[in-house]
């Protein structure tokens, strides 16, 4: 996917002014935040489960190469083929090779964020094959000219029912439907035909289980089950960090993933797919491929933000982020939005292409306290800020201002003299309500807010005067 994260501010500006988007975003709290809160209250000990989940994911990262080799051996033993992709382009090449090998014409796909990294759908279409997204949200985006996703779990979260209704009417040439049920039925009818005639089914992978060589898919629509069992060929694509040691570990993580994501105690479907269809078995693909992508992940693993790889893609960080809630996911300009995206995007696509993202956070740490695998997101954002500062990626005005402030703050006498002068000058700029309406060097503030004026004397001046009077009250 083309990265547009350097236009973050301009995109955020557009999104803030998009009335329909703002109405859709305002539903996040009811849909996700409140439901999650109720769902975790059901757990006997959320914090203990969270710590266990953190430990499982960290154990994987500590010996990632070993767990991947175990996974590979067990998957092969069950008849699957394990392929490794160093880059997003390699993912596309491998998928097309598989498609040509099996003479495929039509490919159905269930949700895979990783495939967005490589714009896989465009590569498939470019090779003259048909690809159909079957996750309802992804389908909506696909038929709307491959609109970028705005959320990990609900990629079309920014769309209203009315917008979808209009889109279906236009693209399917059917009469306009009003109700959500009717719209779902229409999509289902279109998609059912595709499943039955597809040559290949592509899925993502929530977890790859090392001990059994299985892939675990967590969905609500049942589309992944159809994608992975009806066509003769199943290709599961995900990042190398998605491996977990055991099925027992999956059980622990599943106590948190649906709860954190959608506030469900369990998702509607959990598929555990192991190996190809054996003799006498009725279900399963005849050919099973796993494509595991690096795509910058080993670089993250070796960096000081490696903890970000614990992510299980629940989306809770963005659901709870006040910045995300205000601007939505598309403003972030790449595959992964919100707090986790502010780490992954610069790491996968280059900090120089996305250095606004780690800055676009108030560091309120609402994300950190809800993350089910305890990724310290603001701390990781700060590490990327360190790097951006050291590599001089930030605007010179910002760097100079930070340095000047620190330089003065390190010299108390100068600081006292300059602040004494500064507060008097600022005080002069205040109106009769003691508000400064416009700051020449602080337009970012005063464009939308007044600045309450300083009192006109610093604390240290007043305190010194009080001490001189001998007033020790």
């Amino acid at each position, binding site marked *: 996917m083309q990265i547009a994260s350097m236009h973050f501010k301009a995109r955020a500006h557009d999104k803030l002014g998009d009335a329909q988007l703002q109405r859709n975003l305002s539903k996040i709290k009811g849909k996700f935040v409140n439901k999650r809160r109720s769902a975790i209250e059901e757990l006997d000990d959320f914090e203990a489960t969270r710590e266990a989940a953190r430990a499982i994911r960290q154990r994987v990262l500590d010996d990632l190469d070993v767990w991947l080799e175990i996974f590979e051996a067990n998957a092969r033993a069950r008849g699957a083929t394990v392929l490794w992709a160093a880059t997003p382009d390699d993912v596309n090449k491998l998928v097309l090779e598989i498609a040509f090998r099996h003479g495929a014409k039509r490919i159905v796909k269930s949700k895979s964020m990783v495939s967005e990294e490589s714009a896989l759908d465009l590569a498939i279409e470019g090779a003259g094959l048909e690809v159909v997204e079957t996750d309802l949200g992804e389908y909506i985006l696909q038929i709307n000219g491959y609109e970028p996703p705005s959320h990990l779990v609900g990629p079309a979260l920014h769309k209203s029912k009315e917008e979808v209704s209009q889109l279906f009417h236009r693209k399917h040439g059917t009469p306009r439907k009003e109700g959500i049920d009717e719209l779902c039925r229409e999509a289902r009818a279109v998609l059912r035909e595709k499943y039955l005639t597809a040559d290949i089914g592509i899925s993502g992978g929530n977890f790859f289980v090392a001990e059994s060589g299985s892939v675990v898919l967590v969905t609500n629509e049942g589309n992944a089950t159809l994608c992975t069992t009806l066509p003769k060929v199943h290709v599961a694509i995900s990042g190398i960090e998605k491996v977990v040691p055991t099925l027992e570990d999956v059980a622990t993580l599943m106590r948190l993933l649906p709860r954190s994501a959608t506030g469900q105690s369990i998702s509607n479907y959990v598929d555990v797919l192991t190996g190809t269809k054996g003799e006498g078995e009725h279900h399963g693909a005849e050919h099973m491929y796993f494509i595991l992508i690096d795509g910058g992940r080993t670089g993250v693993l070796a960096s000081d933000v490696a903890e970000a790889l614990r992510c299980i893609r629940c989306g809770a960080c963005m659901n709870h982020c006040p910045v995300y809630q205000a601007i939505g996911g598309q403003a972030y300009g790449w595959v992964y939005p919100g707090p986790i995206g502010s780490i992954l995007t610069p790491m996968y696509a280059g900090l120089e292409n996305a250095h606004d993202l780690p800055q676009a956070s108030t*560091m309120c740490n609402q994300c950190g306290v809800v993350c089910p695998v305890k990724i310290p997101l603001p701390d990781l954002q700060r590490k990327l800020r360190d790097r951006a500062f050291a590599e001089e990626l930030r605007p010179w005005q910002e760097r100079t201002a*930070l340095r000047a402030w*620190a330089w003065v703050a390190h010299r108390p006498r100068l600081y006292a003299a300059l602040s004494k002068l500064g507060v008097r000058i600022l005080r002069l700029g205040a109106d009769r309500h003691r508000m400064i309406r416009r700051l020449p060097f602080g337009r970012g503030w005063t464009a939308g807010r007044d600045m309450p004026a300083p*009192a006109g004397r610093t604390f240290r001046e007043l305190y010194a005067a009080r001490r001189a009077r001998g007033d020790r009250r």
Partner: protein
Amino acid sequence: MAPRPRMRVGLFVTCLVDLMRPSIGFAALKLLERPDVEVVVPPSQTCCGQPAYNGGDRENAIALARKLVAEFEGFDAIVAPSGSCAGMVRTHYVELLGDDPAWRVRAEALAAKTWELTQFLADVLDVDTVPGRFDGTVTYHDSCAGLRELGVKAQPRALLDKVAGLKLVEMPECETCCGFGGTFSVKFGEISTRLADDKCRHVETAGADAVVAGDLGCMLNIEGRLRRRGHASTQVLHVAEVLAGERS
């Protein structure tokens, strides 16, 4: 029970309070000064280094952190009328200064005795009366660092409950960020303003006479947006000002 030995407390006024609203510093002094507590205001104090720390200028952040450690490590406790600045010392200095073993030890020692003002009043001094009086309703905004770094939640409410005449009404989403975020408020002014606007709507829903907070950064942001919205009536006060009855 034997009387508690006199405690020497260093007041970290914070740079924002020093520059913008000294009344908060004097209110903190008034609340802290009692027969068993000696309050000292080290004159060379400036800034805890948070702008540099969060801006990626680690070198300067370390320099300012070391300066503050040296200024305050001699006291029995360091108290700041700010969850953000107290949180900086308490939860970030060890990481920031930790590469040098000698400084790590000093940072750990200081972190362990650093308190946000209401935390110190309620949890350490165990105060049962406060001098302030406020005839009206207030709503309390939980600032992010105070709440999520230090666990400041019950203390300001318990203390406000002791203010004669005061009635506390909660606003919706009192724990949601106001959008200040230090330099974020200028770098991403438009988003910051939007978050402040959401906060103002919640303040208005509560319909209190004053919105009270423990951090001047949040206060400037909330008051700035309230006034720009044309909302002139709701006062924006620091919890220390209300508790001490000392206002700007």
